């Protein structure tokens, strides 16, 4: 099962007649493949069986930061990313989804965060398009993007949209949305007037939305109308 080549022995003598070799600690890297994929999930499931609160804490310790880091790629705002992740955990816990899911908790949490992030971008974009009269419909399973690659395509495009901004505007955009800084702070840091920062932000948001809308409107429309 385990590959001995990956073993890393840490041995230390302990004066103990019952174990002549002393304690032995053996470690295999977590990323070694399917065995550990199964094991890490098993540990969390066992924790949930014993005590839900502990299971939840374990999920936060292991996945929270990674989930936030993933969500922020779509929404480019820490606050919104953390809101999305918080909502996913809240639903997972309050509706006791952990009792029902058949895929791994990890797959469930990442998938939920991706769908919610996707929905968020879609809703944001709708605000800035001429399709405002189109009613926002309740999201149904069959209206979701059907392929994995659409998620990656979307956040790569978000990144590209930000990269397309002029240097100064991009810096302001990242400071405000990503680092969560206030306009005042940014103005002080960059020796700009408050008014200039505001204008740059307005332009930046508009530009990013326009970039995404041009590339994604068809996809989002398809999602809405199917």
């Amino acid at each position, binding site marked *: 099962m385990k590959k001995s080549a990956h073993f890393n022995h*840490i041995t*230390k003598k302990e004066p*103990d007649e*019952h*174990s002549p*070799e002393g*304690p*032995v*600690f*053996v*470690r*295999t*890297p*977590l990323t*070694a493949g*399917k065995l*550990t*994929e199964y*094991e*890490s999930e098993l*540990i969390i499931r066992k924790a949930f069986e*014993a*005590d839900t609160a*502990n299971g939840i804490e374990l999920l*936060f*310790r292991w*996945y*929270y*930061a*990674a*989930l*936030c*880091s*993933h969500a*922020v*790629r779509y929404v480019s705002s*820490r606050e919104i*990313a*953390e*809101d999305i*992740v*918080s*909502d996913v955990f*809240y639903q997972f816990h*309050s509706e006791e989804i952990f009792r029902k899911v058949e*895929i*791994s908790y*990890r*797959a469930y949490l*990442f998938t939920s965060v991706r769908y*919610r992030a996707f929905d968020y971008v879609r*809703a944001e974009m709708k605000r800035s398009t001429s399709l405002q009269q189109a009613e*926002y419909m309740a*999201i149904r399973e069959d209206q979701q993007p059907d*392929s*994995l*690659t659409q998620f*990656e395509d979307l956040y*790569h495009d978000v*990144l590209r949209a930000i990269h397309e901004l002029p240097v100064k505007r991009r810096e302001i955009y990242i400071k405000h949305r990503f680092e969560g800084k206030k306009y005042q702070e940014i103005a002080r840091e960059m020796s700009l007037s408050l008014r200039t920062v505001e204008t740059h932000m307005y332009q930046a948001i508009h530009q990013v939305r326009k970039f995404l809308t041009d590339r994604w409107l068809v996809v989002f429309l398809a999602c809405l109308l199917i």
Partner: protein
Amino acid sequence: MIPEIKKEIIFDYLSGTATAFQKRQIEEWATVPENRELFFLWLWEWERNNSQYQADFAAGLSRHLERMERGDLEKPAILLQKERPSYSAWLKKGAIAASLVFLAGLAGWIFRDEIRFQAYSTGNGEIRSVLLPDSSRVVLNANSTLKMPRFGFGKDARVVHLTGEADFEVTSRPDRKRFVVKTDRKLDVVVLGTIFNVYARPGGAKVVLNKGKVQLHYQQGNREKQLTLQPGDLASLDEKGEVNVRKTAHPAVYSAWKFHRFIFENTSLQEIGKKVKESFGVTLVIGSPELATLTISGAFTALNAVELVELLCDASGDLAYSRAGKNKIILTNR
């Protein structure tokens, strides 16, 4: 034909440097459920190595707990669509009422048991020796209960009931009355005079025979089954109700707990956590995923959970622990 995809390709893909052809292949590959699981395992690893920022999990967790406390009043942090009315509050009230009625009934049942049986129990970290009327000796491990009838013990057979773990030293009697250990695990041990260890906790059941002869009675499906153990035999009952027997060279290892000793042999932290929970009622949290595959071998003497964890940390060199409240210890990488 489902293509095979290596981790490196997925990492390229996540970073946005995969070719259009590779993307098509990944799409196909990801239609298989196991591959999807693998994808999320790798996505997790990739996010940890290429994180956009380090979100504070402790802040996230305390926010989550506050939200859970507010319960039904809590609204989603992000609102994209209109909310539907919720009936879950009414359902919850009904459930509470129902469970109160159920608890009242249950209490009556438990009380009946109190009258008929004498019980000996141990708490966290407690080990207790009990001398039975027939001068057999039972040593109870932590968080275990031994029950024996108040009236008529040894009249027909000497019957005791065990939950948890105990070591038995059973006297043999001239009338050869049987000594029976009943467990909740559909496993009974029938003895004639012997030294043995019985483990019957929610996770499973085990019997280790040191000396003498015992018979196991257990149920497989609807059928009663019997099995005779020889000294040095370790019989364990799995979750399907099947009994496996193997030889152990050191049956005394399984009674080491009598002297507050913990003996591990390629034992994972998860199993050690289970032991710590059983013995001391303390929860061991495996704080970082890297520790999931750590296994430990060695013997440690400890009177409480912190002592044991401290020994483990001292011996391993790269294991650290912190306490969180009275009944929780968190293990992390040093």
